[in-house]
């Protein structure tokens, strides 16, 4: 498969690239929208407002919305998952893509960021009871499209699945062998 990786200038993409390449795919970093891919991956790290502002460069917003509505595969990771929603309490002035309904909330725990491995709860046997790696202070608490949850002060959405859209609040590229299997399932 030929996978496009959206570069929003937020953090190092090496882990995501290596992870996809180690699965036998071709990974191409995109500074600007391009259509000739089997799937698009949108990683994101850091502040919501900064990453959201990067979407306004090079017409990413329009491109991603039309890519997703055309039914092509799309994978969001971490802030890349959060951007699919309307916005975030982290930066109330910044706009998400609004592809999914909801606002990203601050985790209600006295130790933030949440750092480490947590076991997923899911009705999907492939996801349930698997350990994945989280690094975040904000998350989507509820969505009709939650495919897995974890607890950190409160229960939140660890993964989203809606038709051709898959998104993870955790880092599959840092979640060991299971993370690799999960990415492979999404890409194939």
């Amino acid at each position, binding site marked *: 498969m030929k996978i496009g990786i959206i570069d929003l200038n937020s*953090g*190092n993409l*090496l*882990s995501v690239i*290596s*992870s996809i390449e*180690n699965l036998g795919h071709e990974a191409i970093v995109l500074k600007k929208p391009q259509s000739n891919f089997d799937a698009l991956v949108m990683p994101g*790290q*850091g*502040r919501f407002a900064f990453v959201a502002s990067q979407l306004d460069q090079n017409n990413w917003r329009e491109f991603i919305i039309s890519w997703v509505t055309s039914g092509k595969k799309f994978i969001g990771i971490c802030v890349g998952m959060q951007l699919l929603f309307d916005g975030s309490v982290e930066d109330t002035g910044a706009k998400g893509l609004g592809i999914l309904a909801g606002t990203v909330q601050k985790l209600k*725990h*006295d*130790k933030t*960021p*949440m*750092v*480490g*491995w*947590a*076991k997923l*709860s899911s009705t999907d046997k492939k996801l349930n009871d698997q*350990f994945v*790696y*989280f*690094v*975040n*202070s904000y998350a989507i608490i509820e969505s009709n499209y939650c495919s897995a949850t*974890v*607890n*950190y*002060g*409160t*229960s939140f959405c660890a993964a989203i699945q809606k038709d051709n859209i898959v998104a993870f609040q955790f*880092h599959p*590229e*840092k*979640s*060991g*062998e299971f*993370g*690799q299997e999960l990415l492979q399932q999404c890409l194939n």
Partner: protein
Amino acid sequence: MSKLVQHTSLVPRLIVCLDVAYGCVVKGTNFKQLKDMGDPIELGLKYQSQGADELVFLDIKASVDGQNSALAMINKVAKNLSIPFTVGGGIKNLEDVDKFFNAGADKVTINSAALQNPNLINQTANKYGSQSLIVAVDVNLEANNSLILYTHGGSKKVSKNYDTWMQEIIDRGAGEVMINAMHKDGTGSGFDLDLLSRQYYSIPIIASGGANEPKDFLNAINAGADAVLAAGIFHRNEYTVDEVKHYLIQNKIEMRTL
């Protein structure tokens, strides 16, 4: 210690530390005599397959010699490992931090530089997010029972108060703090439980220095550590990571298993 019980799916982490010097993994006793223990990538992959939750690569000569850790090694690690890893040693300023992240590190750890220039904590947290920064604290329980901070691989004393410094690290935006009890390092007498249970901190605490047997990990977690870090016990093949985790699970600590 007041500790709020909150719902969490997070499990305590077991971190393997690989001290690197001149491109090889080494292990010293009380920070001094160094023994060659092997290739960083090979060892990293071995611990990943044993179930290590994270790895830390520390270039222990860099801080003393003023060298940068091998960026090529970081790059190779990033391409080959599928678990998070932290890099440290010899970081002096934001430019060094940039270099480590550009090479592929998930987090950096700073120690001497944080004490010399505490603003580096703010700068790094602002640029890469709190989650990207572990501040390491080398502390020694002196003969007169006082806690003294050290820098430069345990070779220089610092006059700052330990508790004041811990709070400052948190206030300046570090994501995690690693407490390295120098008086325990390499002695195999267990983590310093008094230090770990001294106070409840609002960021994750990584216990380092002194692990000798699985029980030491259990005691550190029960004393409040969010993560436990060890080196020699694994490098000398006394225990594998999964053996230690298995012991912890038997003792009612939930751990990630493969």
